[in-house]
């Protein structure tokens, strides 16, 4: 069910990996003692587990916002060395985006905010401007460029923050609960935009509480609860009741719906579970219609 994060599925090279990561916050019990994780290039990796289970800590370790006590981070196959320069290079290549956009918007206007990273890279004004335009385009918010950030809706602010991260041209985007606080339509539209980024080559690491979302969107998932409980294809890991219980998660609906549809002979035994309730309803309607 779970695969060795280091080896086995060697096909796509790792965009990002952690080896023997140990970490503790001061004066508390360790969050991780020897964590191995592997993020395949071009994949969507879901990170799931209970609050306090270490999801955010892992994201911060992988993106260089926390430094592990022991262990190594590798980006695109290279080990990240000690020292400020290597750390900054890790941070550029692995961009972390937090849950609350207000923690990440600190300029007056959208384009000014998105240009923060490119300016820090020391780009010339022209090159920076081009990066900003490209990132706004990719997030489909070119029309917001001149808006003041505090007048935007929550969903728009989330997109501005994503554009700010994308303007660093990272190889991996690490997103902490990107869909939290969005309405269902907002979730759907963000997921589609992110799929576009993935298609253009960006690897995505996404923490979420939404088991159903992870089930239908993630290629692989990392199940955390102060240590790695499992890693592997989303549809295997998230269909395992014992693993889910250990991660204090509830099962996804899709496997149950899929089983029921197969029991009713409405779904091929080897076909994947329906991704959404709409898909399940369509199968049922086909039946009642035909």
């Amino acid at each position, binding site marked *: 069910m779970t695969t060795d994060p280091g080896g086995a599925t060697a096909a796509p090279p790792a965009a990002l990996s952690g080896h023997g990561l140990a*970490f503790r*916050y001061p004066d508390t019990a360790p969050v991780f003692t020897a964590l191995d994780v592997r993020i395949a290039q071009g994949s969507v990796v879901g990170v799931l587990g209970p609050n306090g289970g270490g999801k955010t800590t892992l994201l911060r370790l992988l993106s260089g916002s926390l*430094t592990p*006590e022991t262990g190594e981070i590798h980006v695109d196959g290279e080990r990240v060395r000690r020292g400020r320069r290597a750390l900054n290079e890790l941070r550029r290549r692995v961009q972390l985006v937090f849950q609350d956009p207000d923690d990440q918007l*600190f300029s*007056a206007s959208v384009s000014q905010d998105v240009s923060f990273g490119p300016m820090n890279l020391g780009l010339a004004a022209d090159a920076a401007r081009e990066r900003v335009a490209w990132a706004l385009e990719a997030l489909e918010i070119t029309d917001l460029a001149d808006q003041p950030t505090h007048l935007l809706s929550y969903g728009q602010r989330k997109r501005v923050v994503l554009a700010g991260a994308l303007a660093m041209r990272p190889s991996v985007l690490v997103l902490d609960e990107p869909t939290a606080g969005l309405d269902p339509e907002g979730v759907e539209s963000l997921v589609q935009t992110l799929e576009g980024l993935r298609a253009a080559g960006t690897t995505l690491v996404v923490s979420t509480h939404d088991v159903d979302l992870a089930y239908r969107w993630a290629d692989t998932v990392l199940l955390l609860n102060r240590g790695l409980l499992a890693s592997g294809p989303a549809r295997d890991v998230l269909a395992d009741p014992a693993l889910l219980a250990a991660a204090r998660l509830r099962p996804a609906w899709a496997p149950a719906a899929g089983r029921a549809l197969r029991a009713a002979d409405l779904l091929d035994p080897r076909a994947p579970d329906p991704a959404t309730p709409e898909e399940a309803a369509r199968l049922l309607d086909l039946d009642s219609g035909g």
Partner: protein
Amino acid sequence: MTTVHEVLEVGSPDMHIAEGFLPWQHAAAWTAVAAPFVAHGVRSLTRAVRADPDAKLLIGAAGAFSFVLSALKIPSVTGSCSHPTGTGLGAVLFRPPVMAALGTITLLFQALLLAHGGLTTLGANVFSMAVVGPWVAYTAFKLVRSATARFGAQTSLDMAVFSAAALGSMATYTVTSVQLALAFPDPQSGFLGSFTAFAGLFSITQIPLAVVEGLVTVVIMRLLTTV
């Protein structure tokens, strides 16, 4: 510990006179000197709260902001870091009398939560950081503002804010040096010699810091005036 908190790692050196560093007579005298300013500030603060109960939460927010601002780390020479005094920004935003009260509360929290400055030396620190610093900053702001009015609104504001923050910071450190020199006069050359020694010792770090604090405050005010 290996968290990366570039600007918030509490625990870098600063100019707060530590507990017990001043002889008790000096500590008592500076408390007496600072007291009327603080009392005046507290009175204007309580009057504001009584006039408008809504002001209570705003003052709370301002106090919390002052504390966190003074916990930020700014780059100094030789790659080391220190904290801004925040006196310039506070004086311009909240006016010196309010800063006397808010600054005292901030210093109390710094002493108890961060071990920055002491309880018996609170009066001395209040006088330099919550009284003289803000007044110098405020005066500098007003003077430079009127003197540079012809340079255009933004330039004039930038220059006034820079002067307020940099001079407020310098004034704070000068007063601290005076306080130390009065407490520990040089056996040969008395107060002046000792003042030279303390001021010289601290100027290595404090003059560049005052410049940096001035620049940071200009950035803050620019953003606040465009929002």
